[in-house]
């Protein structure tokens, strides 16, 4: 990779529109609501925390609130201190430390549907201008629909392949699969992190080559690739 030259990245609309979403909410005088997932640390939660960091920074710049409902799983309290640190640091970095309010990051419940009920209640009461739904499972559609009902712009994370189809229709923007995982690198625009996205493409290309070669070999009655990939 030539130094100083960023590799080409296709646009991920759901991530590009975050800045507009924050601006829109601020103009409407409404907060932004974002969730980063219910479980303790997994790959999607890590990626969503990067998005939270970005959104918190933008919100701090324009003196807006970020509401982060937390819960849904006993392990969600493990991630909460990290999320609180992220949002607090964002406000302090912009010199707006006094605007940070930990009560805007409520732990709703570790019981899944109690959390979902609380989340929906938050949307209805706070009437955010933008709702960024993190990697949620059965409840993602509830949040997106309720957000649409209050007139919020919705950006959803397609956590399951089954969820993606419905969220693509119901939400304004959706991050499909690895787009969410690439969020941190994509939003940072740092060369080293964006280069890692090129690594993903290289491995995907290798996977395609393996599939094609494997298909050809199987037609020739050779199971070399299958045996190679069998654990």
């Amino acid at each position, binding site marked *: 990779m030539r130094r100083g030259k960023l590799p080409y990245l296709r646009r991920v609309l759901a991530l590009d529109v975050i800045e507009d979403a924050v601006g829109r909410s601020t103009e409407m005088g409404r907060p932004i609501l974002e969730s980063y997932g219910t479980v303790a640390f997994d790959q999607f939660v890590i990626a969503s925390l990067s998005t939270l960091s970005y959104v918190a920074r933008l919100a701090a710049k324009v003196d807006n609130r970020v509401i982060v409902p937390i819960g849904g799983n006993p392990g969600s309290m493990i991630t909460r201190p990290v999320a609180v640190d992220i949002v607090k640091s964002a406000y302090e970095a912009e010199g707006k430390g006094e605007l940070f309010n930990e009560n805007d990051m409520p732990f709703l419940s570790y019981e899944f549907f*109690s959390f979902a009920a609380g989340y929906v209640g938050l949307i209805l009461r706070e009437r955010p201008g933008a709702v960024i739904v993190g990697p949620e499972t059965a409840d993602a*559609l509830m949040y997106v629909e309720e957000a649409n009902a209050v007139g919020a712009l919705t950006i959803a994370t397609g956590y399951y392949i089954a969820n993606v189809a419905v969220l693509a229709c119901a939400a304004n923007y959706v991050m499909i699969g690895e787009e969410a995982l690439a969020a941190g690198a994509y939003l940072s625009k740092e060369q080293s992190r964006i280069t890692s996205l090129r690594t993903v493409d290289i491995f995907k290309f290798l996977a395609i080559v393996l599939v094609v070669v494997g298909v050809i070999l199987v037609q020739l009655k050779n199971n070399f690739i299958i045996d190679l990939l069998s654990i």
Partner: protein
Amino acid sequence: MSSLFRRKDIMITIVAFCFGLVIVPYFFDIKELNTYANNLSKIVAVVTTSAFVISLYAQSRRNLIMVRQRSKGWPYQGFQLIIVFLIAAVGLILGQASLPYKWPIEAIQMSGSTVFYSIATFYMISAGARAFRARNTKALLFLLSAVLVMLAQAPMTELYMSWPATIRAFLGDTFGKTATRIFAIGLAISGIVLGVRTLLGKEPATLGLQG
């Protein structure tokens, strides 16, 4: 002392050490290392489960503040506080198998969860009426597939027509499985690269740092 552990390089070193401790036993059968890896997993499991104690504290603190400040909806927060501690006290004094403890959980909390799960139906219906529009060719193809698959899913359809089931099987075996596999491969590769970025300290958000 706490500021030492908040240094990025220290945090990344701890993450890398734990990663090594868990991943090396997969490749090398070293008995002591296996023991330490198992113990680390148990510690993580215990900490994760015990997090509910912290959640109880956080929730109570928040509710108390809202009650004290008479924030919007404060009676509900007060009610929640009373109920949580009442049920906890009943459970501690009378035991978890006692009726006064089990009844609120089974009759109220579980029933409430069931109701909220059922509410997902209404949201699906609302999304179906509002959002599923054939705005372009791709959306039209998607909707047609969805309608055909749903038609095949309905048990009564098989009484009168067999072709929806054939189309459903075709769509599932070709596009459905392909999409699932693409999704799974993409997620797996991206997950590995994300993990490497985290280990190298390129995902500072994981450590609660700005980035």
